């Protein structure tokens, strides 16, 4: 869909599909294949097993038990204490005919991750699997990642002041286990594996759905040429991304940072010049 090419600022080693290899860019010379999620929402049944499994495994605290009035979704959104979030959308196709959309959202583990770029302490880091992880013992709760993420994934937890998000179960995948959510998903809507395999599988699934008469099916986040260099966790959706609360065309903010620094430097020089010149003129 997009023909945008990653700028030189984001240059570095590439993976098989021609996208950037985030683990290699972060200095892992010899690393395992990039791992990720393919969430096929066309088979999601809205059971929320992923939400529960994630909470249990990662000891993520409760974050409010309120009725939201949003169909079956009383979780609301991803946050510091919600790392998988199942969205529910009930649509009327025509009178008397409705359809359900359900989708389990998660951190995208972006190839070009704004959260990681802006973190001033180095608490956010890239793992050898190419995933994006927050080191809780380093995070000082500055909140920069919260505003940098174009998907609204990271949050700052009230109770401990730190930023938290999905780790793609770093502790499980390091031991060769499947992340808790994918493990618990009864329909294999959440699939875990090497990213290039998942991308291939997703293309097959997309063709299948198109052939079966579901032209609305589309992939979201699988394209290495998109605004975040492709997501490590991508999706098959049955409607526009914004219907699910996802941004239609997110672009990592740091792509413009070189330009920002140039303008900052020019502005700083102008201020210095103006201040020094202000002393000229007749001394009274």
């Amino acid at each position, binding site marked *: 869909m997009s023909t945008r090419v990653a700028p030189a600022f984001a240059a570095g080693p590439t993976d098989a599909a021609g996208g950037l290899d985030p683990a290699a860019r972060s200095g892992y010379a010899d690393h395992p294949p990039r791992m990720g999620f393919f969430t096929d929402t066309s088979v999601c049944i809205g059971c929320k097993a992923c939400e529960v499994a994630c909470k249990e495994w990662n000891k993520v605290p409760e974050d409010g038990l309120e009725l939201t009035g949003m169909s079956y979704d009383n979780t609301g959104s991803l946050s510091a204490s919600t790392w998988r979030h199942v969205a529910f959308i009930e649509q009327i196709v025509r009178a008397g005919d409705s359809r359900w959309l359900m989708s389990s959202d998660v951190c995208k583990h972006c190839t070009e991750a704004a959260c990681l770029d802006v973190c001033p302490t180095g608490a956010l880091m890239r793992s050898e699997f190419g995933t994006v992880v927050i080191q809780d013992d380093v995070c000082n709760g500055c909140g920069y990642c919260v505003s940098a993420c174009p998907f609204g994934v*990271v949050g700052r937890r009230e109770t401990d002041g730190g930023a938290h998000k999905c780790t793609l179960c770093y502790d499980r995948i390091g031991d060769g286990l499947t992340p808790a959510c994918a493990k618990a998903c009864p329909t294999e809507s959440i699939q875990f594996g090497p990213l290039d395999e998942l991308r291939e599988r997703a293309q097959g699934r997309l063709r299948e759905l198109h052939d079966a008469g579901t032209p609305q099916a589309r992939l979201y986040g699988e394209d290495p040429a998109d605004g975040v260099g492709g997501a490590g966790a991508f999706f098959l959706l049955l409607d526009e991304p914004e219907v699910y609360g996802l941004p239609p*065309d997110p672009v990592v903010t740091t792509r413009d940072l070189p330009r920002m620094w140039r303008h900052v430097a020019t502005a700083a020089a102008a201020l210095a010049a103006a201040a020094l010149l202000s002393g000229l003129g007749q001394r009274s």
Partner: protein
Amino acid sequence: MVPPAEFTSYYGRPVIKEVVWGVPDVPGYLFLGGLAGASSLLAASAELTGRHELARTAKTAAVGAISLSALALVQDLGRPARFINMLRVFKPTSPMSIGSWLLTAYGPAAGVAAASALTGRVPRIGRAATAAAAMVGPGVASYTAALLADTAVPAWHDAHRELPYLFVSSAATAAGGLGLALVRPEHAGPARNLAVAGASAELVARNLLIRRVRRAGTVEAYQSGRAGHLMAAAEVLGVSGLSIAATLGRNRVAAALAGTALVASSALTRFGVFYAGRISARDPKYTVVPQRDRLRRQDQAESPADAGLPAAGLVGQHGLLQCLG
């Protein structure tokens, strides 16, 4: 231009997270950091041209403002005791990291410069510190523009080219205004010049910024609600202060009045920009509509035959499927 927004969202929920930075801590810091950085420059300029009263006042203002800033920043952290972790790494991809290092270099220099000026001791070290603070000061006053712009917050990111100029002008307005208000007019020449230059540049920068965000589709965030009021008040105070300073700036009472108005105007600008960001993060339309529009333009560029039929696919699909949310 973004067409009148008809857009889809998930139950009207924001797409990006709300800004967690607090008020008044962070917008206050934007203001005080600018005041400090530009005051150090003003101090150096005054000292070079032998206006010691003005130099002393500007140095005191700088150290006062930067100390309050540091407190505000630490207080705004979720885990204040770990503020020192800011200095674990040096990361040019993080404006906050660069800012932390700038403040680490700047704070002590500004402190020594002020201490020496106020006590009259170690004048040579004082002069060196004055020069050092003046060298780092422009960075302290300007990097905060990148700090805000390097986020997914639409109203901030869209203004990333203009914010640095708005922020340094606002810094000059504040530093000049404070000198104008506190120092006897016959010694306040550089402050008056800086205030007039800053306030004039701020008018231009604000206009350019508004033009940019109008094209980007986020202008409403700057013109509505609290942000709109703050920006408007900043402009009124700025123009009033500027006119008085430029005409009656040599009169003690008029100078005090103009200076106060300009300092207030600078602060209101920072709060206005801050609130514009907050507003744009809270409403999904600021994220969805411009992105949708960008996709549409790209599609049109790729298949010019479809030009003139904007978003045919979108309309078709959504005409069929009406979202209950």
